[in-house]
């Protein structure tokens, strides 16, 4: 079930879906992380693209939702007004086991003990009927 509890800085921009990304955002609202997959070369494009291999047809494959931390940054000073009062703020890049690298946040991320390579799993956070964000949490193993 999507989580409504994550304490998100209220002035962070919301994603604005467009024609090429609508499937992705709709998938999240339905509880799935869909990866746009080229039917020609099999590349999983993230973010979604408009064309791959000179064609416009894609399959949308359900990702497993598991991956590992590829990189991360911790915003310590409020360099952007949206982060005022919310520092330190952790942003991560998760490399999904399927390959794509996704910019995201950890719902339980403590900037102090984050490491490249840590295993994470998908944790959807519903912000509204239209917008659900693909966030992650550390695997408990």
């Amino acid at each position, binding site marked *: 079930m999507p989580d409504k509890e994550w304490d998100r800085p209220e002035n*962070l921009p919301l*994603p604005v879906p467009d024609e090429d990304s609508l499937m992705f955002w709709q998938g999240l609202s339905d509880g799935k992380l869909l990866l746009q997959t080229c039917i020609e070369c099999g590349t999983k494009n*993230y973010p979604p693209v408009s064309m791959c291999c000179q064609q416009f047809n894609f399959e949308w494959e359900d990702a497993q939702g598991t991956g590992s931390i590829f*990189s*991360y940054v911790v915003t310590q*000073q409020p*360099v952007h007004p949206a982060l005022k009062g919310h520092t330190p*703020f952790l942003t991560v890049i998760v490399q999904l086991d399927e390959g794509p690298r996704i910019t995201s946040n950890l719902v339980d991320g403590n*900037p102090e003990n984050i490491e*490249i390579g840590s295993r994470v799993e998908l944790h959807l956070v519903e912000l509204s009927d239209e917008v659900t964000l693909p966030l992650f949490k550390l695997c408990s193993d």
Partner: protein
Amino acid sequence: MSFMNSVAVVGVGETDYSTESGRSELVLSLQAINAALKDAGIGHDEVDGLLRWSVDTSSEATVAANLGLSNLSWFGEINQAGNVGAALVANAAAAIHAGLANVVVIYRGVNGRSGRRYGRGDVTGRSGRGSAAFTEPFGMLTPQHGLAMTTRRRMHETGVSSRDFGMVAVCEREHANRNPRATFFEKTLSIEQHQESRVIVDPFHLFDCCLETDGGGALVLTSVERARERDGHVAMIRAAAQSGYSVRNFIDTAAVGLAPNLWERAKITPSDISVAQIYDHFAPFVLFALEDYGFVRRGEGGDFVSAKEISWDGGSLPVNTSGGHLSEAYMQGMNQLIESVRQARGESTAQVSDAQFSFVDTGIGTGAVIFERGE
């Protein structure tokens, strides 16, 4: 059809650099253009081309009207962000080589501190639209956020440390301490001060981050034939290249894509370069660019910089000899283009002797120029 050494930069000019210019971006542009034309010894009436950054606010029509140009026959702008300085030089040179213009002025004027602040996302923010839907909602809000991601990953892969790239900031500060135009002309910086400075976006310390500057700069380009009618050294454009290479892997810089093109066009190798200016919005990218252009091998940049090989004082490849974006001014490539020309003409405040080939990168692999000293 190469323009190799057929076009030269014959004039450079800048305004004072400050945090509160008290004048419009248009006036900053015009003052810089006046200074560059004076330096070139070329009259306003000879200018028939204007070229500019799309992100700037002073249109060529307004600039031409204020300069009183009656002869403007070629103009344009290049989009992306602050990184297109080398692309502007490449395109102006191509226009002159093709006979579309005789004298082209490349200009900019920005109130980068008192007006629109780049580092706060004022220019680059897209309110969650387009591809920003996949970054900004997660706190990737300013240019430095994506760059910090790449930095963290490369630290992990190559073992380079904050102290290593802190030496970039230290060497550049030493260069600024020789340059009266530099914002930090009178302030020294030690590696300890760098390490103790507050963290802005981890792994960037305060002194890894570029300045925010109000100011203007301009370059005057013309044919080598016209250039030789004047006195003094000529900064010939040996080669220039731009790259639309889009880096999405958070490891490489665009220099990986640009470098083969650039060296092929220039018919020289990195070891032929005497002095380099490299886009230093953030200190570690100087080190990454040195690796990705092939000046050193991947993973060797940290040791190279730690050994102060980029210092004017005894280094094998002095880098950012005016103080760069970290210590002179953040004019997004313009001040580094100016310094690169000065090196080729023998006029720098940290002059490298016998600088035959002077290299400048204006956006970590999205564009570069190699100037050659001519008589």
